[in-house]
């Protein structure tokens, strides 16, 4: 775009007043701002000793976990919706016939490559049974690439580790009176829905 383009609206610069030309009010303003910030509360933390506070764990997207149901079994039904939704193709599921009567399939292996993951939360959105969730664990480190591929056991152990601090999101939301899509009451489903 050229400076002569008629689409440009040129604004007059506001002329400086006497106070601005004397520098003094701006001098005091600048110095008081920096002085105030110098003694104000700091926004960073001394990391390994004190940890940053996650504002809302419900919407935070940290390390994944695989939830367990009340019987302690993996909740996942190996429907592949998360793997399909994943834009980074980091979820790898091997499904096999379920030994339990309440579902047809379950994951024989379930692994997430945390190095490929972009932590977008699409898998959590896609999951129909609230099996995969993103926790508020924010410091994910490892010493090798292999170590960063989380298998089913590791993902379940993340659940065991975090379930007390962060209950399953569906339960938290249900307790707050908000229905999630996966747990929507049957009569609330739209008429003529999916066939």
């Amino acid at each position: 775009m050229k400076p002569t383009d008629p689409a440009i609206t040129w604004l007059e610069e506001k002329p400086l007043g006497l106070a601005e030309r004397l520098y003094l009010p701006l001098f005091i303003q600048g110095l008081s701002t920096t002085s105030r910030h110098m003694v104000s509360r700091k926004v960073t933390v001394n990391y390994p000793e004190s940890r940053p506070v996650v504002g809302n764990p419900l919407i935070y997207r940290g390390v994944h976990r695989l939830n367990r149901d009340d019987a302690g079994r993996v909740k996942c039904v190996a429907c592949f919706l998360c793997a399909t939704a994943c834009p980074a193709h980091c979820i790898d599921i091997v499904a096999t016939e379920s030994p339990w009567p309440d579902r047809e399939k379950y994951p024989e292996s379930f692994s997430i490559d945390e190095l490929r993951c972009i932590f977008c939360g699409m898998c959590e959105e896609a999951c129909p049974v609230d099996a995969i969730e993103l926790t508020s664990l924010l410091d994910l480190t490892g010493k090798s690439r292999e170590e960063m591929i989380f298998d089913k056991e590791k993902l379940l152990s993340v659940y065991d580790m975090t379930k007390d601090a962060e209950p399953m999101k569906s339960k938290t939301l249900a307790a707050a009176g908000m229905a999630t899509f996966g747990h929507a009451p049957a009569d609330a489903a739209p008429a003529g829905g999916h066939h």
Partner: protein
Amino acid sequence: MMNLLPSPLILAALVKIGLLVGGLMTAAAYLVLLERWIAAWVQDRRGPNRVGIPLTKIRLFGLGQPLADGLKIILKEDFTPSHVDRVLYNTAPLVILAASLAIFASIPFGSVLPPLGIPGLPDPVPFLVAPGLDVGVLWVFALSSIAVYGVLLGGWASNNKYGFIGGLRSSAQLVAYEIPLGLGLLGVVLAAGSLRLDMIINAQAETGIWYVFAQPLGFIVFMVASFAEAARLPFDLPEAEQELVGGYHTEYSGIKLLLFLVAEFLHMITAAFLIVIMFLGGWHLWGVTGSSQDIGWIQALLRFAILSAKILGVIVFFMLVRWSWPRFRFDQLMSLAWKVMLPLGLVNLVTVAAVEEYRPQLENLLGPGIATAVAIAIPWLACLVGWVGSGILTPSESDNSPVRTHGNHGNHGNHGPFDVERELGPHAPPANELAGSR
């Protein structure tokens, strides 16, 4: 055998040089840490607080950081690019550091020691490497001008565009601001009647009136000019990172870069010393230190502590200012130097000269008390008038706005407010052709 031993005078000077150089280098290293802390605190961060005593878990608020920084930069590869002028490239850091250190020969870093009684060493021993140097202030200014050579040589010898522009900017800026610096200083020299910095402190200690109160305009001019001389924000154009990468030391690395950076901090320390000594009373503090030269150990150390505290305060102000205001544009920098600071410095000089000239008559006429009050009131009045006057005379618009034509181009006036012919020169195509060719 006795003749082979250096005289006590030389030994004392060597001891003072050792203490001063060691102290200054340590101070420069720790000022880097202080600068990083203040930068962090101003930005609501915590700053470096990890490095403590090596091989232990003791952290000491990060006080080991300068050691680690120094070690790192010394052990780094000292890379010399192939396209530089080797002789000048290697000379520049040495010139700038040597000049910055030599300045301190005539700067007092305390008052005097109590009588030591060493034969051959005249008592009292002053906190000054070159005592009795009658051209003290001139020495400071001469050597700070030589330090400019280091910057210029570094920029030139680097054979790099960023370095070259940094060096050019630096030369123009330092030449421009040495004049207001000198004018701010002349008022003090006039009032104190001496070019020796220790005498300037004594003059303030005797009257108890620091020159910041007696010459406010001189203080402002000197303060602004010394910010520019030390190339600190808002006048850090010679090494504006956002524009020039590193300015004149872009091509330097390793220990040569360290020499430049230390010299920069020494410039800031020098500026703080000069401001404190010439305007803020040096080691003098009302009710704590007298003006006597006959003092005990406690008083001597107290004066040293007061001077150091004042200098630290000024340096903290330097560092706070860095985060308070944006950098000046180069034309603004020049217009501030030549159109504002130079006239204000002259106003200050004339006022101080007039006050000093007529002070005896005033004292005869009004008595010493009222005469002192008048001698202080007149410079303040001059400061107020000078400042407001320069504010009124400043253009009310910053001069980077596009040139307005106000439609005086008739046939192609509707293409916006730019006077394209004026912007591009007389041989540029008319504005309507430019607009049509997009």
